[in-house]
């Protein structure tokens, strides 16, 4: 934790707190609308699909697939030490998409990374309260 030198998101207590609470316990918590039963990401105070305000949080599988990716050859701050590293949009098994820095890939060989590859979530402790989600290729 002490050596986490990347930007640390500042959670807002009004909308996203359940995610960050779950992250602390190693769980991926996702918001789901109880009216239309669809998952959405990022978290909101109303469902972007049906505009209901009935949102519940549930523990998701923490599994997904690479939708698309890129390799960051240039970066700043704490990320400058990591180049090249891969970033990706992840299709969640439960629906919708998250952004991440990918683990378990060879960023020196971008073409070795496969769209559709299966990934699992993991969390890095960034400070006392914040655990940042990352996704790792598992096959």
């Amino acid at each position, binding site marked *: 934790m002490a050596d986490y030198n990347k930007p640390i998101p500042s959670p807002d207590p009004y909308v996203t707190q359940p995610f960050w609470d779950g992250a602390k316990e190693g769980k991926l918590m996702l918001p789901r609308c109880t009216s239309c039963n669809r998952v959405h990401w*990022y978290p909101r105070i109303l469902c972007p699909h049906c505009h209901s305000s009935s949102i519940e949080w549930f523990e998701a599988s923490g599994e997904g697939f690479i939708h698309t990716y890129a*390799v*960051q050859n240039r970066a700043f701050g704490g990320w400058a030490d990591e180049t090249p590293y891969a970033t990706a949009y992840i299709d969640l098994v439960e629906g919708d998409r998250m952004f991440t820095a990918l683990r378990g890939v060879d960023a020196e060989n971008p073409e070795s990374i496969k769209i559709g590859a299966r990934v699992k979530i993991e969390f890095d402790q960034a400070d006392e309260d914040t655990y940042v989600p990352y996704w790792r290729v598992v096959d």
Partner: protein
Amino acid sequence: MPSNPSMSAAIVAAAESDKIGYIEEGTTALNLHIEAIRNVCAEAGISPTEIEGVFATNHANMLAEYLGIHPKYIDTTSVGGCSFQMHVHHALAAINAGVIDIAVVSHGEAGFSARKNQGNGTLRGGGGDPWTPAAQFGGGPYGAWGPPSYYAHALTRHMHQWGSTKEDFANIAVVTREWAGLNPRAVMHSKETNKFGGPITVQDVLDSRMIVWPLNLLDICLVTDHGGAVLLASAEKARSFKTPPVWIAGAGENQSHADMLEMDDFTATSAHASSEAAYRMAGMGPGDMEMAMIYDSFTVTAGITAEMLGLTPRGEGPSLWADGNASPGGKFPVNTNGGGLSFSHSGMYGMMLLIEAYRQLSGTAEDGVHGIEGKQTSAQSAVVNGTGGLLSVTGTLVLTSDV
């Protein structure tokens, strides 16, 4: 039924700030705005005080005050590089509604000078808001530092989904550089204008520094200082200026998302919808267009947009530039100023699209300053598409020559 605003207004003049590109002695966004507005009024032969509507991405009111204008219509729509296409759309509606007769759309942005001024190069203020939900889970925590970090994901997906190649997209940069060779004000016009200027090959693009795979340096636009402005006037007044009108036959805008987290299809933009609206207003289609000005913040932006505008089949956007078709002397000229890739791109490039489309359709693209022999095309119609944000929001115009 409200009346169709098609042809109820025209762009009657277009001009730039005194200097554009890498302005070594430095400048400010405000200076670039004011120079451009002064110049466009001089070209049209009017006083700035005759302007009734002021359209700019931020602080249109500040520009109006500076120039002693008391505007009847103020619009500060600011959604990225396509904002200027949208300003024209909004001004067209205001003119068609009879609220104003003469409007200016202005742009000033010191993308280059901002580095030494330690500002952000625009008229925007700072912000101290807590992170929005989208920001907490967007690129920030993962080191994404700007548009290249994000746009690269779209190119990866396009290659996967449609079987396109880096070479296909690199060729867009090559053809665009050919046009820069005919524009003496283009940053990359020649070795005289910039040590990296002059013609390039597909191999040069592939060999240039990798910034965010799969985007090489030459897939990415310049970051310059640039100001520009266009004047709009109602149909009744459009022929009362020193400069000729270019008619606004159609206009449309749309948005698919703001943060790339919400981009449903990474190989499509809202230009499909904004161009459909513009074509419908004009009573024309892609087959009626004789040239195109397509926002090229990246080669992938231009390639995908060509598909969205109906100029190529889906998945084959880069083919618009193939076989010399879009090159000087080709049958469908594209980005005849040299594009954001090789002419100038301050951050929000949409104004430069407008100015060049005006020059081409008014027959002034080869005036020796903004173009030399070979740059003027015979096109009488153009589709002009701006793309803003992270492939997020688009504005499309269909413009036609005065006949």
